[in-house]
């Protein structure tokens, strides 16, 4: 039986369906293996437990120095606690600068997980729990290049110099740091003091890393929670899922959804090709049966075929999927957690297995029919086995996939949601495709003869045509939305940076440095709109009520009342602002007993604040009140320092302030930054132009990743297209020869083939445009608060690309029709 099966397989290889089945299966397995492995590796690399990710069981963050009593109590309870500070600063050596995020460690780090330090960039590191010795610094590899230093060299760090002692290969970090653009350095906590880099009012986080036995740890954490003030934050345990992890999980869901949809599309191709395969084998089956083969034996023969296709397709898909995932992981290595873990067996196995399952789910029903052909078919060709309804086939296939996903995720809810979203998305796309198809056919009927002929061909199998439109349309939706989102983000940022707009911010400027800085900038011909004081404080009350009492739930969620704000005082209305209600204070009436406040009108609207109301602030543990006397409109994209809340002069006296300013500096004037740093080592420089560049490069990478997903969908679309071409192969051959017999020239046949492909391309392109615009506008309004924007230019481009792509791919599959000899029409079909 096996040798007969092998012979059959070889013979069928040349008839197209086996290739289409194999192609579709390969794509399904490739998508599952590649996406499964990538998400799995990233997921595991981020740490199965958030403790390793945090570097401790819990972290306690505070914008103010942490009371020693808190630490003492923890240590007495038998817990491990490492003090640390985290802040941004600029490292320099010679003329080279780099903005970095510094973590200064007062003890062993990390408490959970390990840190890996190497002697050279990108070399194998030593795994340890340690802290840099005083006077030394550990750097991320990319800083070495920027500063042009090697291990053993020294770097300027505020008032002191630090020796580069190692390169960070992998370190636990806070959630936000994975996609943080500023690279990370580790130093000893003692050096912070010596460098004199932190002044009163500097932006910095004090962090406690806390680890220990749960029995000792949990009561301490509970106590800590009761002691902490609103500006302090505890992360860890179950509730403390870091924001990035949530974001990555969302990305993971998106990726899974995309892989699922490409698998479903591949499944459609498999179902179509399998149906065609089985029909072509009805005659063989009938003859086998006539010659005395039993149903069981015919079943066996064709199940062997399915098995061989499955084995081959899974093998190829597996190899391609593994190659692709390692390509993508390498491409993204800069932005992914380190160390990156290796491939694990589970997603690979699931991918390969799911390929087989998809093959079984979508192809088995057709293959099982082959043996059921009545032997009488040798005499009466019209006899067919009873067909299984296509709904049954799809339900079976979806059920099988659900089972598979459940096995993988162990979460029935997740499977349900994912499947529901996939099915709804798919149906929605099909619905739009159906509408476009109907309208297109209606219009096409009015076209010239070849066009009507192409329409006729598409109308021949409406369900297949709609499948093709859906598949290609989806690919174009993904393409259009990534292109639009990317260019929207970039143009949004670039438009915010008009010629001469400030591209450098200086923060952490100390009061005594304001004058020297002003002089220095003046000497260097750098103009600023002013140097503003900045005091960090939280809004804690409104009109003698706490925020919980005064605000409803939605208002309490507004970011400005949940975190520390930068407060300032000013004598005059800042340049990019306009008073819209009430009146700005005059210089005469400053400093009565209660300070006057100016509040941004947007914030006021969201919190329901009105003129005359009193806000209470907590600044460094002290409280201060102010009365709202005017509301301002703020032009946030002015790239000037902007403030939600401005006090009248004198209103914040007695609180530690640092100063902030912004200015435009062309690239050739960058040496001015050296001078500033030399004179004022504690000032932090933020180079927006450099950050923009990095953001753009990240965005490019993300776009590329999404485009990989598009590739899967596009390939699945090609599989559907070829499967459908296979199904209609003989009819098309007949049509072509018949047309020739009736006197049509080659030109006519070419025109009718092209008309069909162009129509298919236009339909898919239109679906891509509609879907893309809808998706992009939903994302705009959700994520960027941008009103409806349409992109008419792409209404032309997407269909054009779609037409060219489908035209070329389809033409390759159909051009043989042109050379079909006319006398073939007299053959029996």
């Amino acid at each position, binding site marked *: 039986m096996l040798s007969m099966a092998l012979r059959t397989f070889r013979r069928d290889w040349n008839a197209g369906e086996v290739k289409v089945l194999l192609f579709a299966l390969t794509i399904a397995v490739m998508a599952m293996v590649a996406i499964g492995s990538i998400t799995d590796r990233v997921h595991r690399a981020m740490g199965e437990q958030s403790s390793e990710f945090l570097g401790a069981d819990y972290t306690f963050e505070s914008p103010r120095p942490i009371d020693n009593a808190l630490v003492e109590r923890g240590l007495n309870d038998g817990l491990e606690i490492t003090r640390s500070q985290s802040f941004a600063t600029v490292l320099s050596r010679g003329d080279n600068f780099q903005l970095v995020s510094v973590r200064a460690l007062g003890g062993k780090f990390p408490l959970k997980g390990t840190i890996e330090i190497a002697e050279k960039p990108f070399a194998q590191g030593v795994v340890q729990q340690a802290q840099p010795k005083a006077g030394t610094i550990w750097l991320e590899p990319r800083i070495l290049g920027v500063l042009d230093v090697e291990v053993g060299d020294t770097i300027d760090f505020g008032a002191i110099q630090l020796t580069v002692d190692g390169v960070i290969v992998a370190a636990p970090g806070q959630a936000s740091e994975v996609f943080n653009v500023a690279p990370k350095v580790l130093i000893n906590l003692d050096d912070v003091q010596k460098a004199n880099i932190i002044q009163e009012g500097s932006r910095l986080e004090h962090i406690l890393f806390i680890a220990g036995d749960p029995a000792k740890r949990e009561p301490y954490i509970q106590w800590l929670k009761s002691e902490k003030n609103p500006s302090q934050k505890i992360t860890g345990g179950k509730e403390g899922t870091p924001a990035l992890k949530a974001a990555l999980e969302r990305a993971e869901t998106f990726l899974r959804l995309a892989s699922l949809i490409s698998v479903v599309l591949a499944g459609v191709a498999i179902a179509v090709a399998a149906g065609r395969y089985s029909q072509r084998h009805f005659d063989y089956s009938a003859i086998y049966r006539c010659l005395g083969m039993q149903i069981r034996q015919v079943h066996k023969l064709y199940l062997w075929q399915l098995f061989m296709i499955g084995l081959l397709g899974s093998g190829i898909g597996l190899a391609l999927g593994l190659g692709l995932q390692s390509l993508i992981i390498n491409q993204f290595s800069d932005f992914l957690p380190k160390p990156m873990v290796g491939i694990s067996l589970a997603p690979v196995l699931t991918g390969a297995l799911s390929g087989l399952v998809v093959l079984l789910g979508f192809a088995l029903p057709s293959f099982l029919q082959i043996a059921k052909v009545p032997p009488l078919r040798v005499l009466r060709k019209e006899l067919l086995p009873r067909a299984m309804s296509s709904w049954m086939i799809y339900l079976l296939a979806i059920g099988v996939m659900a089972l598979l996903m459940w096995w993988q995720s162990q979460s029935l809810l997740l499977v349900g949601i994912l499947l529901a979203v996939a099915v709804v998305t798919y149906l929605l796309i099909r619905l739009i495709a159906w509408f476009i198809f109907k309208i297109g056919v209606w219009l096409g009927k009015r076209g010239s*003869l070849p066009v*009507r*002929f192409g*329409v*006729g*061909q*598409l*109308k*021949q199998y409406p369900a297949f045509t709609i499948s093709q439109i859906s598949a290609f349309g989806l690919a174009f939706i993904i393409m259009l939305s990534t292109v639009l989102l990317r260019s929207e983000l970039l143009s949004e940022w670039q438009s915010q940076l008009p010629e001469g707009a400030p591209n450098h911010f200086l923060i952490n400027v100390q009061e005594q440095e304001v004058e020297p800085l002003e002089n220095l900038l003046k000497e260097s011909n750098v103009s600023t709109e002013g140097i503003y004081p900045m005091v960090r404080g939280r809004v804690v009350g409104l009109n003698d009520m706490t925020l919980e009492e005064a605000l409803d739930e939605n208002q309490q969620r507004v970011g400005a009342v949940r975190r520390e704000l930068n407060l300032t005082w000013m004598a005059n209305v800042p340049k990019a602002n306009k008073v819209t209600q009430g009146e700005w204070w005059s210089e005469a009436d400053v400093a009565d007993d209660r300070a006057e406040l100016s509040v941004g009108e947007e914030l006021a609207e969201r919190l329901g604040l009105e003129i005359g109301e009193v806000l209470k602030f907590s600044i460094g543990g002290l409280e201060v009140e102010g009365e709202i006397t005017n509301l301002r409109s703020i032009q946030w994209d002015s790239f000037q320092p902007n403030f939600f809340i401005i006090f009248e002069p004198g209103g914040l006296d007695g609180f530690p302030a640092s100063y902030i300013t912004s200015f435009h500096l062309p690239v050739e004037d960058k040496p001015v930054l050296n001078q500033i740093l030399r004179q004022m080592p504690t000032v932090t420089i933020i180079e927006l132009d450099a950050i923009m560049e990095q953001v753009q490069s990240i965005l490019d990478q993300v776009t590329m990743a999404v485009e990989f997903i598009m590739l899967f969908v596009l390939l699945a679309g090609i599989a559907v297209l070829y499967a459908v071409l296979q199904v209609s192969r003989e*009819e098309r051959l*007949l*049509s072509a020869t*018949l*047309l*020739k*017999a*009736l*006197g*049509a*020239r*080659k*030109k*006519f046949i070419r025109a009718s083939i092209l008309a069909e492909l162009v129509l298919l391309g236009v339909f898919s392109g239109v679906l891509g445009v509609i879907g893309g615009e809808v998706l992009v506008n939903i994302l705009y309004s959700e994520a960027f608060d941008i009103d409806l924007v349409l992109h008419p230019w792409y209404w032309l481009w997407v269909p054009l690309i779609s037409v060219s792509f489908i035209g070329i791919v389809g033409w390759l599959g159909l051009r043989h029709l042109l050379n079909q*000899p*006319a*006398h073939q*029409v*007299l053959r*029996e*079909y």
Partner: protein
Amino acid sequence: MLRTHELTKTVNSQGHDLTILSDVSLTVNEQDTVAIVGVSGSGKSTLLSLLAGLDLPSGGEVHLADEPLHQLGEDQRAAVRAQHVGFVFQSFHLLPGLSALENVMLPIELKEQDRAKERATELLAKVGLEDRLQHYPNQLSGGEQQRVAIARAFASEPKILFADEPTGNLDTKNGDKVSDLLFDLNKQLGTTLVLVTHDDRLAERCQRIVRLEGGKVVADNASEALQDQAPQEQVSQDQAAEQ
């Protein structure tokens, strides 16, 4: 109308030259009805495809409506067919994506004549399918499909009509109906008819029967037929009596 001179077709099959047709010389005059008969493999279909310019001969000449088909390229032969030729096939060969009306309109449009829709509608009415205009082939019975095919064959008002086993896929009743239509329309429109068939009854309705055997013409009753057209009339009357 149609003239061949020493028409020969050989094909190369697995290294051997195989002669399918040799030295066939025929002349068919306008409005003649000719049946080409012979057993399976005698070369009937090959002869038909050469006469209609669907294929090129290996040797000899074939002239259709004064056009030397054996010297023309594929597209030129297609143009000749569009201008002068109609077809009826054993398997009907309607285009599945087009409705009955569109199928019949097709040759008129290929010939770039006007009033395609009106004329196609008229013809479909003549074959008794005026209420099936918008049906697709798969919604029609075999007999109905062949009637559409006949309407299509006459649609472009061809000078000559080639029919390949036009009743081969039909039961006796439908076959008779279709052959009646074929001959009636042929007579009405004064078309030349060349048909290939196994069916003796159908062949006998033609004025002339050409018998092929092993690629050669072994019998041709051209002279008798030309002398006396009575037998054909006789058969028609006999059939009318049967119905």
